[in-house]
């Protein structure tokens, strides 16, 4: 049952609810309109009916009453006849009563002494008593008829007159009204009245029967508003419409209606009686001045309508329910496949592509959905299969690429320092492909006193470039074995590549042969970007002919170039992956930045130079992707240098030994005296550290190498003690006051300040600390 009310979750429930709401609104609107019109119709027909009924009744009464008054008026002629004997009057009145069943009593009352012999009072009166008619004298001292309403009022008004109803003296229950017609003598003077008493029982009965509805009632009032007919007997002749109005919460309602009735108007009104709304119809009984009213409770008038409305409403409600159920069931039936679709979709999502779909028997949109769904299912299976094979193929390629990467890396010299024992050369290189494999290459080897080196860049990136890179490198190695001129080597490689170069790939190349003893450099450039030359602490671009990259033209006339490098000069070679490194804003690193960063770096070791430049490039590039392979090959030629090596024990006494050695060294290499002190201090600091801590108290030795080349002093301290890299120690905050600073750390700081470069390496379980200082020669 709870599920029945989960409207939001069920398509069938929700839709059928909407339908019900719309249908319901339509029902309500239709029923309301029809009810309204029915209501109005019933109301107007009830009013019309009441009007007609009242009119009929009042007409009947008027007819009766006027009939009697006419008859009485006709009789009076007889009485007015001056020759009528007094006793005949008795007969007359008896006759009138006897011959008219409507008349309960008849009297003729004369002015005093009209019949002189009859005396002051003379009023023969006949009345019905059972089956017979009794005649008597009305007037006597106890009954002074001259003041009676039926006598005096017509006399005063000088008009024939119907009295207000009153209780018959004989019995208490019967209400009577008297019609008095004026008797005149031949002079037109008032001589008396002829009266007829009419029992109003028939009025009472007629009015009581005026009951068009089960709970309606009628009443009649006299000229002063007094009830003359009323369902409540106690009110008759006792209360008036005005006196009972005073008992109401708002007396003005009945008072104004009573006034209208007394004024002889007819009409209808809506009043509240006993907390029920009633329709009040009233009409006058003309000529006589009485009025008739009918009170019909609204509920009675609209009883049938109410009943009908109730039935219609119930039927509508039932119908609505039926529609709800029918809609719900139908829609559920139609939408049930959707549920299974949902379930199937879930299964498919979990990998079961072959799940069965619900069968649809209809030929409508549901069938379409099912067919599409089935089609999708099949396609999914195919797609998943192809995805799988693609994925495995990709994996295969990736693993092959990884292997290729390793092979490529294996092709280039990666061990540094490449020639640790040589003091006339400092060489370092780095190759960073953009993808797994790249098109950049560098290579070098030493044969005798000659350093053969090459740096190049294959057009493109990735596997194609890497293949050509491998070929180029192999050709370099093989061809440089027998061709001794750079141009020859370059040409041979170029020709070899140009052949069969369908892809039109090319390689930029810079090939050089450096005489390590003399510093003479022979070189050939093939479209490569010019290296940076650091010489005598100045930075410039190495001058060379551009030529064209190899692989484009057969037998291009490459030519050698020769130059003499200064002692300690640095040839910083690189590929365009360096200068064209893009930042996040697509800004290229550029030549200017390169020159800038290389300022003052001649005194650095090759490794340091590369590190510094790469760091600067990295800073420039930021989070951007590496756009091209980045290769650096830096060569420092130290053909003329001087070095000494000391082996010291880790004893404090050795400090003095070193000091002396350094003094003599400084002299040999012409170190300005003002520089000697800081250099001594630095060295002292370092070796004291080593002496005290390197071997943790155990005896040990360490080496100190002092060398100079092209005004750059290099001190290398090598120990086999515990790993310690002073370069990585944080600089202490020297701005703090002495009390606030941490103890220690100042020595290393001093060294860093005094020396141009502090480089630490760990190799073969040895701490190798290299200090460099450029000296300004005198």
């Amino acid at each position: 049952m709870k599920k029945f009310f989960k409207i939001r979750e069920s398509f069938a429930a929700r839709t059928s609810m909407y339908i019900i709401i719309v249908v319901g609104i339509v029902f309500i609107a239709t029923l309301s309109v029809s009810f309204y019109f029915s209501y109005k119709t019933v109301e107007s027909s009830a009013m019309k009916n009441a009007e007609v009924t009242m009119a009929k009744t009042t007409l009947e009464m008027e007819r009766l009453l006027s009939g009697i008054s006419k008859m009485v008026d006709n009789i009076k002629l007889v009485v007015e006849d001056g020759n009528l004997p007094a006793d005949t009057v008795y007969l007359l009145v008896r006759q009138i009563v006897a011959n008219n069943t409507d008349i309960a009593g008849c009297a003729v009352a004369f002015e005093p002494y009209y019949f002189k012999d009859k005396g002051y009072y003379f009023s023969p009166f006949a009345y019905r008593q059972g089956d017979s008619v009794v005649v008597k004298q009305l007037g006597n001292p106890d009954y002074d008829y001259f003041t009676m309403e039926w006598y005096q009022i017509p006399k005063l008004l000088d008009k024939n007159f119907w009295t207000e109803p009153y209780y018959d003296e004989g019995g208490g229950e019967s209400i009577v009204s008297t019609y008095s017609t004026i008797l005149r003598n031949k002079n037109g003077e008032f001589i008396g009245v002829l009266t007829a008493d009419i029992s109003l029982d028939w009025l009472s009965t007629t009015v009581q029967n005026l009951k068009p509805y089960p709970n309606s009632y009628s009443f009649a009032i006299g000229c002063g508003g007094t009830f003359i007919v009323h369902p409540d007997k106690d009110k008759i002749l006792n209360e008036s419409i005005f006196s009972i109005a005073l008992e109401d919460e708002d007396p003005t309602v009945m008072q104004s209606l009573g006034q209208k009735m007394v004024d002889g108007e007819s009409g209808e009104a809506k009043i509240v009686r006993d907390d029920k709304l009633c329709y009040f119809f009233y009409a006058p009984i003309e000529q006589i001045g009485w009025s008739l009213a009918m009170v019909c409770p609204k509920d009675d008038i609209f009883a049938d309508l109410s009943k009908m409305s109730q039935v219609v409403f119930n039927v509508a409600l039932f119908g609505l329910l039926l529609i709800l159920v029918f809609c719900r069931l139908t829609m559920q039936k139609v939408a049930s496949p959707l549920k299974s679709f949902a379930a199937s979709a879930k299964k498919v999502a979990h990998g079961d592509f072959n799940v069965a779909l619900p069968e649809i028997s209809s030929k409508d949109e549901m069938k379409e959905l099912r067919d599409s769904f089935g089609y999708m299912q099949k396609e999914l299976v195919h797609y998943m299969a192809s995805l799988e094979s693609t994925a495995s193929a990709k994996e295969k390629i990736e693993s092959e690429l990884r292997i290729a990467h390793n092979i490529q890396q294996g092709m280039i010299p990666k061990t540094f320092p490449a020639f640790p024992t040589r003091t006339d050369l400092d060489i370092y290189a780095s190759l960073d492909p953009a993808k797994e494999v790249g098109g950049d290459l560098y290579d070098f080897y030493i044969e005798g006193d000659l350093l053969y080196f090459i740096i190049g860049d294959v057009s493109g990136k990735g596997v194609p470039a890497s293949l050509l890179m491998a070929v180029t490198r192999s050709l370099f190695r093989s061809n440089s074995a027998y061709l001794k001129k750079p141009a020859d080597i370059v040409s041979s490689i170029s020709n070899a590549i140009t052949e069969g170069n369908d892809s039109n790939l090319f390689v930029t190349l810079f090939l050089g042969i450096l005489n390590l003893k003399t510093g003479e450099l022979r070189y050939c450039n093939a479209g490569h970007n010019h290296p940076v030359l650091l010489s005598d602490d100045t930075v410039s671009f190495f001058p060379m002919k551009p030529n064209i990259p190899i692989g484009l033209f057969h037998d291009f006339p490459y030519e050698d170039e020769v130059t003499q490098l200064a002692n300690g000069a640095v040839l910083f070679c690189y590929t365009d992956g360096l200068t064209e490194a893009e930042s996040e804003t697509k800004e290229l690193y550029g030549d200017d930045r390169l020159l800038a960063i290389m300022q003052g770096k001649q005194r650095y070791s090759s490794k340091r130079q590369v590190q510094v430049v790469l760091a600067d490039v990295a800073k420039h590039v930021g989070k951007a992707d590496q756009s091209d392979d980045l290769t650096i090959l830096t060569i420092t030629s130290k053909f003329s240098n001087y070095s000494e090596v000391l082996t010291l024990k880790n004893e404090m006494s050795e400090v003095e030994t070193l000091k002396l050695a350094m003094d003599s060294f400084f002299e040999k290499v012409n170190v300005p005296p003002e520089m000697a002190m800081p250099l001594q201090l630095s060295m002292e600091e370092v070796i004291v550290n080593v002496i005290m801590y390197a071997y943790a108290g155990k005896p040990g030795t360490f080496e100190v190498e002092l060398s100079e080349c092209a005004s750059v002093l290099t001190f290398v301290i090598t120990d086999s003690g515990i790993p310690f890299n002073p370069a990585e120690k944080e600089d202490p905050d020297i701005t703090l006051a002495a009390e606030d600073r941490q103890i220690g750390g100042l020595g290393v700081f001093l060294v860093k300040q005094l020396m141009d470069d502090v480089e630490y390496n760990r190799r073969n379980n040895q701490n190798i600390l290299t200090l460099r200082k450029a000296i300004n020669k005198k």
Partner: protein
Amino acid sequence: MKRLLTNLLFVLALSCATLSAQELHKIIFTPQWQTQAQFAGYYVAIEKGFYKESGLDVEIVSPGMSTTSISRLKHGEADVISTQLLQAMVAKDEGIDLVNILQSSQTNGLVVVTQPGITSLAELSGKRVAAWTSGFSELARCMARDNEHNIQWINIPSGVNYFVSGAVDGILTMYYNEYFQVMNCGRRVTLDNTFHLADYGYNIPEDGLYCLKSTYRKRSKDMNLFAEASRRGWEYARAHPEESVEIVRKWMKKDNIASSLSHQRWMLEKIMELQVNKETCTASYTLDPAIYKFANDILRKNGFIRKDIPYDEFVAPKAESK
């Protein structure tokens, strides 16, 4: 059995004791008209047991259509009656030796009501005004005479139909009775058409309780107790008007008289008003000597009484001393 006997004896003894303790003195009281709220105080006094508490067994007998309360007093058919001051004085003058033991009315209740259009008594000159033949209209006639309003008095037995039919231009009513009917008969009468005799210098009080002097001599204690208890009844009615109207209607029903609730309410309300002296604003239930003299003089002047009736001969001694 023994238990039953002792209970019986106990009951007997008790009833004897009760009987002997309460010796109720019988009084027959006749108001001047049929049962209605005009005499509410008395019906209330019976209903609430005020008379019983004073040791009185009171029976109220209405005068009926043929007799007056005064005639019943005269013929010994009633011990105490209620009647109007002027009627009592006329009766005294005629030889019925009665005394006043309670003066409930302090203000005159006669009102002349005219048809719409007539807004002053002067306009009634030459016009017809209905007045009852059964008495109590002398004051109005005196007033008309004194002011030379040339009113044509039309004698009528009772009721307001003369007014309703338009046969008369005005009608004399009692403020607490016919006035209500006249104002509620659809003739569009307003207060501009009403003229209280009290406002025109004829403020003679009306209803009071009377007994024969001889009765008073013999049973002054009872008479005073009756007056006292009746006063209590009136005061209760003043405090509980709705309840009192209910009591009156109950009694009316017993006498087979149909009653209109609104009419009886009005009647009680106005009777209560008329029991309050307009100057002192109190209901004293005693006859003011000055006012009595005024009444005496009017009657003398208009020949209704032959000679003056001294106050102390008219008002019972005990009642006077209040």
